[in-house]
């Protein structure tokens, strides 16, 4: 137990020390949020609604980023540099190692959610009911798990360069096509239809629903669960194949 706690602690320390995390998961979303709710005139009629909506977009953008990029690339790095092999010599079981990384990562998600929410509150005085804050936070935390699975899929790649290249593309494509940067309703209709099949759209959509007083659609649960299963199965399958 002591080992798991120590491992979790250091996993979190490592994430916070990573300049990419601070840039992509904290600085960028908050900067975007500031720009698109204060500087650029988006021509929306309901300012308050837009500010809450876009806060959810940016929080999901932040969390999705660290799930795919940080988690996955780290795994590749530890593998390629022989650290994973070295870990196998210790009595710390690999499941505990993986669980500590997951737990550390989820705690970082929670912290990111808190920080970005706080930024929204400070910048625009976003006012939601207590239960809206809490439920949107919980939704984003739990619905980030399929993206961790995607991260572990990225983690099966051999080279750090390929992994960071590929995950960058996936991350930005998912963010833009899923409507995290701008709402899908301004997209051409075929892109709108595509978005409904993307995990990123449903990730954000659940949070958008919550701040608009509704709850996440069943389609969102369904699509996210389906992606979780696909990513996990693929990641396990590829790992098995590599170890054989």
């Amino acid at each position, binding site marked *: 137990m*002591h*080992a798991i*706690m*120590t*491992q979790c602690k*250091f996993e979190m*320390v*490592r994430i916070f*020390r*990573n300049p990419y995390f601070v840039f992509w998961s904290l600085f960028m979303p908050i900067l975007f949020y500031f720009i698109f709710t204060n500087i650029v005139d988006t021509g929306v009629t309901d300012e308050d609604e837009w500010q809450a909506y876009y806060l959810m977009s940016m929080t999901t953008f932040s969390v999705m980023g660290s799930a795919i990029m940080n988690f996955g690339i780290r795994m590749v*790095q*530890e593998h390629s*540099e*022989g*650290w994973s*092999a*070295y870990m*196998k*010599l*210790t*009595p*710390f*079981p690999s499941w505990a190692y993986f669980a500590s990384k997951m737990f550390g990562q989820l705690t970082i998600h929670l912290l990111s959610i808190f920080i970005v929410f706080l930024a929204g509150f400070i910048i625009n005085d976003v006012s939601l009911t207590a239960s809206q804050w809490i439920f949107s936070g919980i939704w984003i935390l739990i619905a980030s798990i399929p993206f961790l699975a995607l991260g572990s899929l990225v983690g099966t790649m051999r080279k750090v360069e390929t992994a960071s290249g590929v995950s960058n593309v996936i991350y930005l494509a998912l963010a833009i096509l899923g409507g995290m940067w701008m709402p899908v309703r301004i997209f051409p209709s075929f892109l709108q239809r595509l978005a409904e099949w993307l995990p990123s759209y449903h990730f954000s959509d659940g949070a958008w629903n919550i701040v608009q007083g509704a709850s996440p659609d069943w389609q969102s649960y369904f699509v996210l669960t389906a992606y979780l299963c696909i990513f996990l199965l693929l990641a396990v399958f590829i790992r098995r194949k590599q170890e054989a």
Partner: protein
Amino acid sequence: MKKIVEVKNVTKCFGKTTAVNDISLTIKKGSTVAILGPNGAGKTTTISMMLGLLEPTAGEVKLFGEDPKQLTVRNRIGAMLQEVSVIDQLKVREVIELFRSYYTHPLSTEELISVTGLHEDVLKKWANKLSGGQKRRLGFALALAGNPDLLFFDEPTVGLDITARKNFWDKVSMLKTQGKTIIFTTHYLQEADDFSERIILFNNGEIVADGKPDDIKNNISTRSVSFQSRDKHAAMTLVESFEEVIHCYEKEDRIYAVTNDTDAVLAKVFSQGLPVKHVFVEQGRLEEVFDLLTSKQKGVL
């Protein structure tokens, strides 16, 4: 006599290359054993199988009578691999703290620092930004973190200067007095001779000799029958085919047949009527055999 390491008929193939070919050995508690051999002899592969990092193609490895992958076994072993790898975004002191937390009876941080001679300023550095020598020290500290009974060092002194080397061996001697079992690999005969009680000599994935350094030096397998011949090629081909001959080479116009049984080789040479003259039976030195193995290896590469 308690067997700490047991290797039974182990073979490891990588595709078509056989890195380790049907080796068997046991190592008893408290001994210091050198696995000696030229580059590519299969030392790292053997150590990796003992550590459970590689699965043998055939055969079986046991540490403390159990599968090396058992967590209870891992709690009692420590290793410094040939390539010391480190985690990023952590300071040296933090890596040590992290590693200590994995074991049930870790050495105290102070002890680890004093044994490995990591200075205060090194402890504050990023673990992945250390110099080669500092990385080795950290690797040494991590190997000792769990206060293990059994230690593995794969080529521990490669790339170290003379002072650092001496320092390392001093610490190893100290660990030896604490009753730890130590297995290290090296391609320096001198190191194996100076710091081990037993040398296991590897070449081409096979154990060529195994025993006390002094015994190995006097080992019959370093004996040879040498002679001159009119038809060197034919003589060599024939002598090589004798089952007693370990290997055969030519030096300064003489043909040398290294063997465990010089009598038998002599008998065959004469009974088969080889055109030989100036026959000698020689007691070789380990250095020579070793150099020969090493140079043979270079020839292949």
